[in-house]
């Protein structure tokens, strides 16, 4: 087999890989032995292959390795719920500490502010909660009470009616009882209150009739320890 140099050089690729037919290999080997130009060309061919094989093998950088690991981790959690959960966790995790701090700071501020803003409950005096029974209108006294007057202990119910009374001091007389009954019946009482609600209560009345000479009229005085009503003709106090 006699081939030209160009034909031989075209077969270098098969020759170096050893994939040509036996006849072709023998032909090339024979040609190279007797052709200096082709032999030099073949040497450059082999040198090129050597250079190719000697090329350094690049290795992935640490960043590329990290990205690969992250991508594989994401692939492992590739179901929709898993991916959402992972994304949610990744978003929330960096915020967790600041958010906790913010909540705590908010709570502390709220507590401090609240303490300043709260109005302390007013101390309610028991006396303002409970009011005693009082007399509103006392009918004029038209009976003699004696010099020392008459002191009564009355029991006023929640409706403002005197349900019972007891004479504590005074001159007893047979006419006094109906007079006092009439007085209790026609007088107007205000019931005692507790926490704003009317309730039963006790009321002590001190009745004394005062007669003022020269005017031809009598004055009744009723005293219960508080300023009572006054009249130019009569004065009575409870």
């Amino acid at each position, binding site marked *: 087999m006699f081939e030209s140099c160009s034909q031989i050089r075209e077969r270098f*690729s098969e020759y170096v890989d050893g*994939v040509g037919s036996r006849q072709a290999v023998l032909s090339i080997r024979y040609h190279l032995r007797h052709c200096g130009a082709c032999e030099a060309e073949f040497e450059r061919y082999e040198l*090129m292959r050597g250079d190719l094989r000697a090329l350094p093998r690049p290795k992935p950088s640490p960043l590329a390795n990290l990205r690969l690991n992250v991508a594989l981790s994401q692939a492992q959690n590739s179901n929709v719920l898993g991916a959402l959960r992972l994304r949610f966790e990744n978003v929330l995790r960096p915020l967790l500490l600041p958010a906790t701090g913010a909540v705590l700071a908010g709570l502390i501020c709220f507590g401090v502010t609240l303490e300043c803003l709260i109005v302390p409950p007013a101390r309610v005096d028991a006396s303002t909660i409970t009011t005693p029974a009082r007399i509103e209108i006392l009918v004029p006294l038209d009976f003699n009470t004696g010099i020392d007057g008459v002191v009564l202990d009355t029991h006023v119910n929640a409706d403002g009616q005197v349900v019972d009374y007891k004479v504590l001091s005074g001159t007893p007389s047979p006419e006094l009882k109906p007079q006092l009954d009439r007085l209790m019946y026609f007088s107007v009482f205000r019931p005692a209150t507790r926490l704003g609600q009317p309730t039963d209560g006790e009321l002590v009345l001190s009745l004394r009739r005062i007669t003022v000479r020269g005017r031809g009229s009598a004055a009744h005085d009723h005293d219960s320890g508080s300023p009572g009503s006054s009249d130019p003709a009569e004065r009575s106090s409870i």
Partner: protein
Amino acid sequence: MEAARTLETAIEQVSLQAAEEAQLVAELQVGSEEAFTYVLERYRNPIYSLVAQILVTEADAADVLQNIFVKVFRGIGQFHGQSTLKTWLYRIAVREALNFRRGWFRRHFHEPFSIDDEPAQPAAKLAKAPPESGPYETLEQSERQQLVKSALDALPRPYRAVLVLREMEEMPYDEIADMLGVPEGTVKSRLMRGRELLRRKLAGMLGR
């Protein structure tokens, strides 16, 4: 007699490797994290090297490396052992590299790199050179490799892929054909054409 014994030992080793690989694949298919970590550690660097040679840019190679192992992770259930695990992995790698297209953002965006990562190339080569070779030889070798690399990178991607698989990975024609999905004749012609193109480019660069 000796040759027969050697052949017998070789066959035993091959069958042992096949059994080990079958077990590894079975573990991968049931989702063993340990098995996947082993595969990752064993094949990450060679596959990255292959992809980086085909793609030229290492940033692209890092992207493709991710895609490859994610595909391997998701597609290991479809591996039925018609080829070796390595061939299957390399097939995925080569196809991913050949099909890789840079997006607009990637074409216009250059990743920042740290000057602390690697020293300058010639200086690094000098630092890593064996003590018996002089600095001049080391520098010449380094420059030569850079020229060869740039000539290789200038080749069209199909020729470059075949050359890398044959010359650097030392794979047989049939495996290359299987990986690329082309007939062996195409591999042979691409290899011949690729070598010729590379030789011409190097002749122009080196003046030989």
